[in-house]
């Protein structure tokens, strides 16, 4: 790291810039996909909103107001520029601006995701590194079966089991996560403890598996064998030789598996009645609120792409061949 030449830095900057541009192009294409699918079978949004009893003139007037009479490509262009400017449009179902609906929900989901990350990362590191350094032992095999089973477990089973254990049997925690702005910090923590735990368990399994793979990969390298032959004690090999080299791949694995937060949040927020963005999106599907649905989908996709990008960049920075 210390002996980094300026050409190496330039090289990395160039690769990173390329990835950032590529991520934005992907996001642009994703927006086209989402807009196309959600606008493909509009039935007739105006007709649907007004119901069967509306007169032809009323429907026509609303169609005009909603801009449904313009060509699809023009509508897409307008929608995209508005979103880039930070104005995702108007929800005719809820009768208020989409930005207003989202702004009350987004912080809740961010809090949930942040806390779940805080719980899951240390746990995954512990499980992953333990499994890797005890490769082939019973410990490793049991952890493998445990994480393999957790990965395939439906999120609502995990959440249900937590509710049964902590709120039905033990009566420790509430099973419904009501979050109000007036609640004190400790009240809020208590009410979102179960959603956070459930979400953390959902992501921890995948994260631990990828961490194990990353550390195990380093343990196979010749420099580990060299250190062993020199008589360096194994704990020191792991801490001083393996871990610094594994940091890049491990962070990469973390970022990749945090993308499981999105899918997990949808189920977890719904089961606990948590007022977040994911449960909002589910409601938007039920009420066929396309404007709201498109915005929620775009936020989730942007967050997902951002995490992939972070994973990518960390992998690039960690690759010593690119630093030459």
């Amino acid at each position: 790291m210390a002996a980094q030449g300026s050409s190496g830095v330039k090289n990395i900057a160039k690769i990173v810039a390329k990835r950032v541009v590529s991520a934005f192009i992907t996001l642009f294409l994703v927006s086209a996909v989402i807009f196309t699918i959600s606008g493909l079978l509009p039935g007739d949004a105006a007709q649907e909103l007004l119901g069967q009893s509306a007169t032809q003139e009323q429907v026509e007037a609303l169609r005009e107001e909603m801009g449904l009479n313009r060509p699809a490509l023009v509508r897409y262009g307008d929608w995209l520029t508005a979103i880039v400017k930070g104005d995702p449009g108007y929800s005719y179902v809820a009768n208020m601006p989409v930005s207003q609906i989202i702004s009350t929900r987004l912080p809740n989901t961010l809090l949930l995701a942040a806390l779940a990350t805080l719980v899951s990362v240390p746990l995954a590191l512990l499980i992953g590194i333990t499994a890797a350094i005890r490769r082939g032992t019973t410990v490793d095999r049991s952890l493998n079966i445990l994480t393999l089973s957790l990965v395939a477990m439906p999120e609502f089973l995990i959440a249900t089991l937590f509710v049964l254990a902590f709120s039905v049997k033990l009566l420790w925690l509430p099973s419904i996560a009501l979050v109000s702005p007036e609640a004190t910090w400790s009240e809020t923590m208590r009410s979102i403890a179960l959603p956070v735990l459930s979400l953390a368990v959902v992501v921890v399994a995948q994260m631990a598996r990828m961490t194990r793979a990353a550390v195990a990969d380093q343990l196979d390298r010749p420099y580990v064998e060299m250190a062993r032959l020199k008589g360096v004690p194994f704990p020191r090999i792991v801490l001083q030789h393996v871990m610094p080299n594994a940091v890049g791949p491990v962070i990469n694995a973390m970022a990749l598996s945090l993308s499981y937060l999105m899918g997990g949040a949808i189920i977890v927020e719904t089961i606990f009645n948590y007022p977040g963005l994911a449960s909002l999106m589910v409601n938007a599907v039920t009420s066929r609120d396309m404007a709201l649905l498109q915005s929620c989908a775009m936020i989730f996709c942007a967050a997902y792409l951002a995490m992939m990008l972070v994973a990518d960049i960390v992998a690039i920075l960690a690759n010593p061949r690119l630093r030459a």
Partner: protein
Amino acid sequence: MISRIASGVRTMPLSGQIGFGLVVFWLLAAVFGPVVAPYSVGAFVDDEVFAGLSASFPLGTDYLGRDVLSRVLWGARYTVFIALAAAMLAVFIGTSFALLASLRGGWTDELISRAMDTLISIPSKIFALVLVAAFGSSLGLLLVITAITYVPGNFRIARALAMNLVALDFVQVARARGEGPVHLATREILPNMIHPLLADMGLRFVFIVLLLSGLSFLGLGVQPPHADLGSLVRENLTGLTEGALAIIVPAIAIATLTVGANLLIDALQKGGRS
């Protein structure tokens, strides 16, 4: 065939054997379950709702006093059959595109790969939600929607496998012989990637079971009067506060199916490597 499977299972680690047992159990339940179910699926058979275990209702009753065992056996049929068909469809579409991309190469490959890369950048549940909002959720649509959601993932794997094979001598020779693209794809390439492809289909099956039951759990999947295992969890959610069996049994049914399939695939892949 049967003896080969038997010897394969015997040499597997215990976790793989358990997985094999669970998968076989649920396949049998999906095929024969409704035949052996003690009650009709919609029958109100008990006055007591959320009843516990009893001789006449081995797994208790649900929120309307229907037999949980019978409903789970029927639900398993929906879950297993839809997911199996969707997994096959996903692999069929994904692999067809992969073969096309690898044989044509050039800008055809560029174009298909770019499109698939875009689709894979949309988290699967988000993608499925948008599709359900746009098209609805009849049984046939659910099958297609869950399949489409996992096409890009299969495409990636299949393309990587096919690209390696296309470069090999025997494919080049067949090409020089003047064989058409259909022959190249089905006779030369496909037979040599069938094992990893089947393992991937197994994984897609697990993902699709989870996605489908997740959608049904949200009330956006299988609609009444039909009910898959996810719908059963949803409709009994009011029993959660009393820890009703009617909510735990279908949830565990899904978990044993997906965990079993995952353990089996893991064992098969490890066996294939050594």
